[in-house]
C-alpha cells in the first residue's frame, strides 16, 4: 500500500513537472500538420521552422487555420528516433507530415505507413527512396555544386589546380554537390586540373580539420582553388589554409552553407564565395505544398527552393542579407 502511495506521489510529481510547459492548445477545426526536422539545434532547422510559421501565418490570414507542430528526434542524427517521431504522429492522426528524412532508406517504411493511414507527406531537404509522398521540396544540390564550380573557374581564369575535399561517405546531398562541382570543372574549365577529389573529411569539424591539414601538406604548394561541399568542411579548410599562410585570397576557397565563422571568413577575404540554400523558403514551401495537396490540388513531385552565391561584394545587398540573416525572431519569437 505504501509503495503504491509512493508510486502515485512520484508519478504525480512527474506529471506536474511536465504540465508546466504544456502549450494547452487543442486542434480545432483547422488542419494539424507536423514538421519533423533532422534535428532542432542547428541554425538551418530554425530557419526551416521560421518558414513553416511564415506559411502558417499566411494561411491563417487567408482564412485557412492550421496548427503547426514542430518536433525533431530526441537524439539528433538517430534514425530510430526519427522513425519513432513519425510513427507517433501517425498514431496520433495528424492531417499531414512535412519530413526531412535522416536517411533515404530507413524512413521509407514509416512514410509508406503514413500513406496507408491516409496522411499526406511532403519530403523536404533530403531525398527518400520511395514514391509514396506528395512532393519533394529541396535545394537542387547538383546545381549548387555547379554554381560554386563556375565561380571558382572564373576566379582562376580557367587555369590552375583545384582540390575537392568531400564531406562524408553516404551523404546524398553533399555527394550531389561534389558531383556538380566536378561536372562543371570537366565540361567548362578543361584547363583546370583537379588535384584530388577522393578524400573525405568526416562528419565533425575536428575530423575535417585533420583531413584538410593532411591534404594541404601534400598539395599546399600547388593548389590555387578549393571547393568545400558543406559548412564544417568550409570552416575547417579555411582554418587549415590560414595555418599554412595562404589565406586572404592566395588560395580561392568556395564553400557551401553559412555559419557565423564562415561569414567572418568571407568578410575578411579568406573565403571567396559561399553557395547558400534557402531554408526559410524550404520550410515555407513544404507547408504550403502540403496544404495544397490536402486541399485536393495537384502539386509538382519535385520543387526546387533555389541556391545563391554569396561573395564579399554582394553580401550586403538586401536579398542576400535576408538569406544570411533570416528574420527568425519575426516568426519564432524572441524566446526561440
Amino acid at each position: 500500500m505504501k509503495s503504491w502511495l509512493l508510486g502515485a506521489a512520484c508519478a504525480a510529481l512527474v506529471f506536474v513537472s511536465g504540465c508546466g510547459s504544456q502549450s494547452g492548445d487543442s486542434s480545432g477545426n483547422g488542419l494539424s500538420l507536423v514538421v519533423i526536422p533532422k534535428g532542432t539545434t542547428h541554425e538551418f532547422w530554425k530557419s526551416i521552422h521560421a518558414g513553416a510559421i511564415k506559411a502558417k501565418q499566411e494561411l491563417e490570414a487567408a482564412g485557412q487555420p492550421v496548427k503547426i507542430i514542430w518536433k525533431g528526434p530526441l537524439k539528433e542524427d538517430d534514425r530510430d528516433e526519427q522513425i519513432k517521431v513519425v510513427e507517433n504522429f501517425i498514431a496520433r492522426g495528424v492531417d499531414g507530415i512535412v519530413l526531412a528524412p535522416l536517411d533515404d532508406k530507413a524512413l521509407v517504411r514509416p512514410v509508406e505507413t503514413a500513406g496507408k493511414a491516409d496522411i499526406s507527406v511532403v519530403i523536404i531537404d533530403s531525398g527518400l527512396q520511395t514514391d509514396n509522398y506528395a512532393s519533394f521540396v529541396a535545394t537542387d544540390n547538383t546545381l549548387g555544386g555547379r554554381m560554386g564550380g563556375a565561380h571558382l573557374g572564373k576566379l582562376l581564369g580557367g587555369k590552375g589546380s583545384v582540390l575537392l575535399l568531400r564531406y562524408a561517405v553516404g551523404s546524398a546531398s553533399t555527394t550531389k554537390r561534389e558531383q556538380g562541382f566536378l561536372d562543371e570543372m570537366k565540361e567548362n574549365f578543361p584547363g583546370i586540373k583537379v588535384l584530388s577529389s577522393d578524400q573525405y573529411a568526416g562528419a565533425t569539424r575536428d575530423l575535417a580539420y585533420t583531413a584538410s591539414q593532411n591534404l594541404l601538406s601534400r598539395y599546399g604548394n600547388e593548389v590555387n582553388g578549393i571547393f568545400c561541399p558543406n559548412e564544417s568542411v568550409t570552416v575547417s579548410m579555411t582554418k587549415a589554409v590560414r595555418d599554412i599562410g595562404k589565406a586572404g585570397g592566395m588560395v580561392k576557397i568556395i564553400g557551401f552553407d553559412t555559419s557565423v565563422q564562415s561569414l567572418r571568413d568571407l568578410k575578411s577575404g579568406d573565403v571567396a564565395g559561399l553557395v547558400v540554400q534557402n531554408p526559410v523558403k524550404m520550410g515555407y514551401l513544404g507547408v504550403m505544398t502540403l496544404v495544397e495537396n490536402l486541399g485536393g490540388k495537384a502539386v509538382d513531385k519535385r520543387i526546387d527552393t533555389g541556391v545563391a552565391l554569396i561573395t564579399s561584394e554582394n553580401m550586403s545587398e538586401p536579398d542576400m542579407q535576408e538569406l544570411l540573416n533570416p528574420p527568425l525572431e519575426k516568426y519564432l519569437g524572441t524566446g526561440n
Partner: protein
Amino acid sequence: MNFPSLGSRDFLKAIRPFAGLFVVLLLFALDGELRSLFFKGSNFKMILTQTVIVAIGAMGMTMVIVSGGIDLSAGSVVALCSVVTARLIEQGHGLAAVLTLAVLTGGLAGLANGGIITTVRMMPFIVTLGMMGIARGISKWLANNQTVNPESCCGADLCRCPGFSMESVSQFMAYEWSPTFFPLPDGVWLALGLAVVMAVVLRSTVFGRYVFAIGSNEDTARLCGIRVNLNKVAIYALAGAFFGLAGVMQFSRLTQGDPSVAIGLELQIIAAVVIGGASLSGGAGSIPGSVIGAFMMACLANGSGIKDWPNYMQEIIIGVVIILAVGMDKVEPFIQRLFKRPSSPN
C-alpha cells in the same frame, strides 16, 4: 524460491513496477487530450513495437545485473548484430541462418566478455566498456563506415526465391497502421514469448537460482559448490545472444544495417532493468519487472510526444523516474517507520 505471500515486503517490491506503470497510466487517463489519443489500440500497438528492442535487451541485462555484473557493450553489440544481419541477407542466406548467425555473433561477444571477466578477474564494467568500443569498431569495419542496405527485391526472379530473407526479416518489426490493437507485429509476440520463458528460467530453474545466488553473495555461492565462473560465462554469453536478437530487431526496424545505431541504448536497457526493481549490487530483479520498465519508458515518451512536451522535458521526466524508482528502495523503510510510529508506543 517460494512465492512471496500477499502483502509482504517482497510482494510489494515485486509489484512495484506494475504499480508504477498503473499510476502513470492513471495520470494519463486524467488528462483529456491524452485520454482520447493515448488510450487507443493503434497507439498501444505502436508503443509495444517501440518497446521490443529495449525489452529483449533488458531480458539479457536482467540476468547480468541480478548476478551482480553489468554489460555496457549492449548497444554496440546490437549495432554489430544489425550490421551482421544486413551482410548475411546481402549474401543470400535464409531466414533461419540469418537469425542463428546474428544471435550467435551476439553470444560470441558475450562469451568473450564472460571469459575475460572470469579468467582474468577483471571488473565487468571495464571489460564490457572495452567490448563496447570493440563491437562498435567491428560493426563500422564490417559496414565500411556506411549503412548496409540489402536490396528489398533483388530482381523479379530472385525475389521469389525462398532463400531470400530480406522480406521475412524486415517483417518482424513492421508497424502497419491499423485502427485496432491487433494484428501485432511478430517481433512483439516473440518478445512476449521470450519474456515468459525467461521469467520461468530465472525463477524456477537451477540455473536461474544460481544467478541469484551468485549475485547475492559470490563467495557463499562458491562455497556452496556452485561453479561460479562457468555460470558467469553462461550468463554473459546468453545476455549477448539476447543483444544479438535485439540487433536483428533493430535491423528489421530500420530495414538497414546501421553501425551508428543504438548509441546509448545500453543505458536505456539498464534503466528499464533498474525501474523494474533490479539492484545494481546484484541479487534482485525480475524479467517481468524489466519488461514493464521498458514499456513504462516507452509510454512516457509516447505520452510526452502526444502532449507536445519539448524533448528536453521528456529526457528530464525519464531521468526523474529512474531516480525515483531506485530511490524507493531507500525511502520505503523510512516511510514505513513513519507510518508505524503512531501505533508502536503501546
